[in-house]
């Protein structure tokens, strides 16, 4: 063995051999493997199966519910309000805290990857995981809602693509927000839940300007401006489910103009996401991550 050690150190480390991109890609795949490892994956999978399960249950017990109403209820209400924040909270809050709690962060800090890049790459991995979850399980939900229903599957496929894209954008934004919060507080879960309940739950449902500060408002606007949620009633006439549920006054062109346009909403979510990510990276650069040494307080 001692002979073998002779070769260690024989090679000279040169800067040209070090690939920053390669290191970042390894960190990205390492984070994805962490996400996939263990029973957490099973719990999250079960959680995301809920909308599909509810859809099947409702179709079995309440056959008169129009599929579009069920789609709105599950894909546009249940998923963005309950599942997306939870999934984002689970993965984004652990970007640094998990590594710190497990004391494995040392192995990352000792590599030629700047701290902001460690955060950025791990945030990207969290976004990827949650987006894949959303895309996969929303597809299952659509399948559960529309299988054997009297609808055009082409239209359903288009609606699915729209919904999945919107949800993926929303969950990515939530990841950025919660990632940033996790660098500011150790009580990220409780703070995150309070944020979800008060800001994304309460404020977003108030027909006032304060909802402009919520992620879910823009998500809803993107959905509302790109998809239709008008249900035809048996008694005749149609009902706009989204306008009622989301407190969107769409009765006149002037009222509609009060809400941001589709492109503006997408732009704002992307910018908010990037601002939070940059802030998070900057905070990481400033911070020390204590392992086996006392925190400053």
């Amino acid at each position, binding site marked *: *063995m*001692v002979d*073998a*050690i*002779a*070769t*260690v*150190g*024989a*090679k*000279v*480390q040169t*800067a040209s*051999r*070090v*690939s*920053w991109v*390669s*290191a970042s890609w*390894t*960190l990205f795949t*390492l984070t994805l493997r*962490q996400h996939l*490892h*263990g029973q957490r994956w099973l719990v999250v999978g079960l959680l995301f199966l809920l909308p599909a399960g509810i859809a099947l249950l409702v179709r079995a017990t309440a056959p008169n519910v129009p599929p579009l109403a069920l789609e709105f209820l599950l894909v546009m209400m249940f998923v963005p309000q309950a599942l997306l924040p939870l999934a984002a909270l689970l993965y984004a809050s652990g970007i640094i805290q998990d590594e710190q709690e*497990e*004391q*494995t962060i*040392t*192995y*990352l*800090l*000792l*590599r*030629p*990857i*700047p*701290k902001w*890049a460690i955060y950025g790459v791990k945030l990207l991995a969290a976004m990827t995981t949650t987006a894949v979850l959303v895309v996969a399980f929303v597809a299952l939900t659509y399948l559960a809602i529309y299988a054997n229903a009297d609808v055009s599957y082409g239209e359903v496929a288009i609606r699915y693509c729209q919904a999945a894209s919107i949800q993926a954008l929303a969950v990515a934004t939530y990841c950025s927000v919660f990632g940033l919060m996790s660098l500011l507080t150790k009580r990220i879960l409780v703070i995150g839940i309070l944020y979800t309940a008060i800001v994304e739950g309460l404020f977003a449902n108030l027909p006032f300007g304060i909802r402009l500060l919520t992620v879910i408002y823009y998500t809803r606007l993107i959905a509302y401006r790109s998809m239709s949620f008008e249900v035809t009633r048996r008694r005749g006439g149609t009902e706009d489910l989204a306008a009622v549920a989301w407190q969107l006054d769409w009765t006149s062109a002037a009222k509609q103009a009060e809400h941001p346009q589709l492109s503006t909403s997408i732009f704002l979510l992307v910018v908010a996401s990037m601002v939070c990510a940059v802030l998070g990276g900057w905070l990481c*650069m400033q911070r*020390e*991550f*204590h*392992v*086996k*040494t*006392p*925190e*400053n*307080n």
Partner: protein
Amino acid sequence: MTAVVSFQGVSKWYGNVIGINKLTLAVPAGVTGLLGPNGAGKSTLLQLATGQLRPSQGLVKVLGEAVWNNAALNCRIGLCPEQDAFYEWMTGWDFVLTCARLSGLPRKEAREATARTVAAVGMIQHKDRAIRGYSKGMRQRIKLAQALVHEPDVLFLDEPLTGTDPVARRDLMDIIQRLGSEGKSVLVSSHVLHEVQSLTPNIVLLSRGRLVAEGNVRQIRELIDEHPHQIVLHAEECRKLAARLLTWDDVEGVRVLEGEQGLMVETRKPDAFYGRLPALYLEEGLTISAVYSDDDNLEAVFKYLVRK
């Protein structure tokens, strides 16, 4: 001599707790032992030197570059951390390979480096087992492997021998000594004094966040003049010799060793003491078969300095 690691007036506070207190230190190339009791600031020093912590005051440099937020420097630094933490679900091979890739080595070179390093730490036969099933010795070896895999110029080892069996300890010490002989700079912290002593005569001694001593163990010992030196004399007529020695002013105490094989003498003036010894035989016929100092070892230095 060029300092590989330098601390210039470095202090580190954790709120009201002080981890390192106005430390100015230059660690030369080669193997250096970092010693100190629990809470002395060894881990803080190593975390400052590897850029994990930002000094509250002062500047830390490694290989002439400031370390805080200097990720590029990490290509030339390796750390074997104290904590027994791993990605437990990985195999040993996978862990070392991942660390090599995280260090920026291209795929092929990372594999080759992993193979070399895993062999070097004697883990080839266990490389495909999950780390969670490793013994303490195996964990220490694989932890050392991740620090070596990118072939750093400076290696920081935080308690690398903790919990290892004698065989693993011997192997790890061989690796460290070989690295030193190959021109690598290694800073090893340890509580096991005799092991550090057998690794290197160069030590840095910390206590309560302050630098207490640095340099060669023997040189340090010589500087501690105010503390009595303990000198062992082997003689046949122990008690007679003891009575004679007690008449000397610079002898502070004499103790007869077990079995009356010799004496333990305490003196503050060892050179004068050694100078007068031949006269005992020549003038009084007292035979002394052996003379040696009992406290040129690290244990004694450690005790003297930390106790103050």
